[in-house]
């Protein structure tokens, strides 16, 4: 088609313009497909799991997926904030564990009110994020290693304060949010939804959001443009800690227990989910919708493999391969269409 219109284009002006437009619309369509590849991939997997086991498509299972996606989703948001400014935070998984443990022990040992204990836990998490931010900006520590050190310290800290024991028997009011339902629907996903809406609004519509993107896109240029880059990075780390604290509380309330290695398993998935959803590890790129897609994709893989009775010895491996494919498809998008 295009070649033909090129040939007939000699002498006329309208034809090549049309050819260009047509070509661009094809490119745009291809781009739309590939840019939403996470969602297409997600729909495909839901369909496949549904065919393999119709139970997968029941309301109760889908509710279960959303509940399971809540903690990972919040951690994905926390990680994305830091990725957007071109840094990384390996400590968020450990933060969920130790912050919830400190809150829970404050309630159990010191007899503080439940609400106050929860706030203390989230406050500790926020403070850890703030310290990460200070180390990376003021002390110019490399975030990869700084947060690795923080992660190991916090993991060890949790082991120390829990003495290796699992913290259980929390008051019912503490665990309430993890079990509560409203009209048959669990409350946890409401927190997830609220988190994504708030983050989406912040990123798209506020000065803070623009500053985060600009800082990750080109920190030197952002500084010259009048953005206080260091402050923005500290805010990113602090907010990341705050959200991890909320995720930590929700995880404890949902499980009704805090193990001595609570939260550690989430870290790599919380990094993978945003990247699958289009957040760049180099900063400055990515959106909330993509992050949500990445989170749901990983959760569907996790839950789906369990439901279709894949023997547990194979679940991790197959899950890994599926993630691998998702990232490969995304890389293909970048190579073929350029990264926008």
């Amino acid at each position, binding site marked *: 088609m295009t070649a033909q219109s090129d040939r007939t284009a000699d002498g006329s002006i309208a034809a090549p313009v049309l050819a260009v437009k047509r*070509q661009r619309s094809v490119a745009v369509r291809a781009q739309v497909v590939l840019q939403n590849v996470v969602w297409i991939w997600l729909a495909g997997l839901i369909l496949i799991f549904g065919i393999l086991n119709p139970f997968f498509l029941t309301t109760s299972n889908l509710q279960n997926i959303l509940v399971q996606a809540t903690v990972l989703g919040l951690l994905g948001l926390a990680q994305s904030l830091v990725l957007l400014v071109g840094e990384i935070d390996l400590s968020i998984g450990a933060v969920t564990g130790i912050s919830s443990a400190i809150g829970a022990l404050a309630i159990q040992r010191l007899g503080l009110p439940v609400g106050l204990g929860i706030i203390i836990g989230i406050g500790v998490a926020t403070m850890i994020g703030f310290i990460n931010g200070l180390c990376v900006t003021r002390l110019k520590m490399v975030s990869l290693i700084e947060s690795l050190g923080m992660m190991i310290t916090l993991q060890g800290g949790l082991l120390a304060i829990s003495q290796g024991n699992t913290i259980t028997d929390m008051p019912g009011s503490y665990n309430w949010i993890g079990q509560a339902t409203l009209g048959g629907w669990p409350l946890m996903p409401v927190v997830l939804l609220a988190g994504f809406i708030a983050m989406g609004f912040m990123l798209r519509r506020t000065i803070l959001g*623009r500053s985060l993107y600009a800082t990750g896109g080109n920190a030197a240029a952002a500084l*010259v443009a*009048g953005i206080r880059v260091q402050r923005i990075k500290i805010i990113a780390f602090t907010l990341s800690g705050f959200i991890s604290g909320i995720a930590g509380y929700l995880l404890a309330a949902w499980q009704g227990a805090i193990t001595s290695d609570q939260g550690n398993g989430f870290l790599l998935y919380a990094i993978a989910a945003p990247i699958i959803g289009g957040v760049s590890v180099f900063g400055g790129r990515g959106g909330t919708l993509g992050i949500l897609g990445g989170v749901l994709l990983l959760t569907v893989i996790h839950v789906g493999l369990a439901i279709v009775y894949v023997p547990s010895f194979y679940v991790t491996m197959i899950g890994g391969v599926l993630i691998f494919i998702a990232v490969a498809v995304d890389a293909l998008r970048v190579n073929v269409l350029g990264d926008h």
Partner: protein
Amino acid sequence: MATTRLLQTIELTKRYGGVSALKGVSLSVDSGTVHGLLGENGAGKSTLVKIVSGLQTPTEGEIHLDGKETGPADVKRMEGLGVFLVTQEPAIVSSLSVAENLVLGRWPHRGVWVDVRAMNRLATNYLDGTGLDPHAIAGRLSAVDRRKLNILRALHSGGRLIILDEPTTALTMADRQILFGFMRKLKREGVTFMFISHYNEEILEICDSVSVLRDGALVTDNQPVASVNSSALSEMVLGRGLHLFTRGRAGPEAAQAPPPNWQFRGLRGSNFRVDHLDIAPGEVIGLAGLPGAGAQEVARAIYGLVPAEGTVEHAGLTGSLPADPAEALAKGIAFLSDDRLRDGIVAIHSIAKNITLSSLGAISSGGVISLARERDLVADFFKRMSIRARDASQPVGQLSGGNQQKVLLSRLLATKPRLLILNEPTRGIDVGVKEEVHRIVASLTRDGVSVIIVTSDLDEMLRAVDRVLLFVNGVVVDDRAATSLTKEDVLRIAYSSSPHLVTPAVPAEQGAIVS
């Protein structure tokens, strides 16, 4: 002088989708000459040299070297035939020595071990008379030495035709002379150069002949430089006469010039001491001097980019110098960076987001951006600056240098500055856009905006400013009307100082620009 044809392209055409970047270009380059390649941003220069150097394949057409067709080419093959492209970002490994860089990828070796002694011997011989120390660490070289190293590396790898893509960007006047001297020496030894530059004077100085591209077509092929002058070159590039901007200067009424409204006092930085610096509303002053002499540093200090002491008085308020750019912007000072890619544009973000980046506060309330006000602001500048792009959502990194500069100027003007600091405002943009930039500045000054221009292009500075402040060794040694200065005056004064300044130490930061 008998010349032989080294390179001949025949009807080279390159189409991207339905768009022709090159239209039947038949270019000829003679052996042992420096051949200038001119054209506006986006005229097809880069595409042409990429095809000739094998980085891209032409849609149609042939390349002949020494009268023989090269066949389907790739970089390896063209390099094998002696064609090397030296780009604006010299490909040098900063942490390795000059000798190691010279033989990079072609290490002399014994088994798997690099034969260091043989390498250094080879490099010492090869670099004899070039002024490069084979043991020096490449990252510490001056900008001009890096260019030399790149050219030498190409020659060492068997290069006969060296294509230099804007090699003088980020070089000082003195460095340019060093580079040109080096090129002339190699030319006598039979090396052929293709030389891309936006500066007419450079073309006239170093080139033997020129070719000009306009909108992808070759409009001038291999014309001897002896037969053209600067305005003829501009006309060939633009396809129309260029009306050079010269700032309209106050005549007899200059005596009643308005009193200064920006008064800087006691400026002290790591390498400058300026007791007072006054700028009147609507005045354009130029800061000139060799690198490291203080002009750049003072401009950056006023914008809060480098730590410095001093006070600023404006609109009845006296305060210390801004601590950071955010504070400077709040005071009404805006700053154009001399290196767009390094700290100017956010290349991966859209034109719109780049334009509004410094004025988000003005289009938002309570930290929430009004999308409607943002759209209006962007549309306004998109039109006013006649930015050439698909639309305002296109990433800035995809635009030509001139259009990127317009986006940055839009960002500055959107802050409604009262003092505009322009650092190398016309670097790497074509002559047409250069004049546009100066006209925009002129219209701002009519509204009372004060302007500071820092540029190494002295011809341009003398045309565009009212008053020149000449820096030597960190202090202002001369301060007078641009009309009473010539380029020669400026150079004489700049070089007249203590001898050690003639080869100024390049600060590490500046070295990094070129790496």
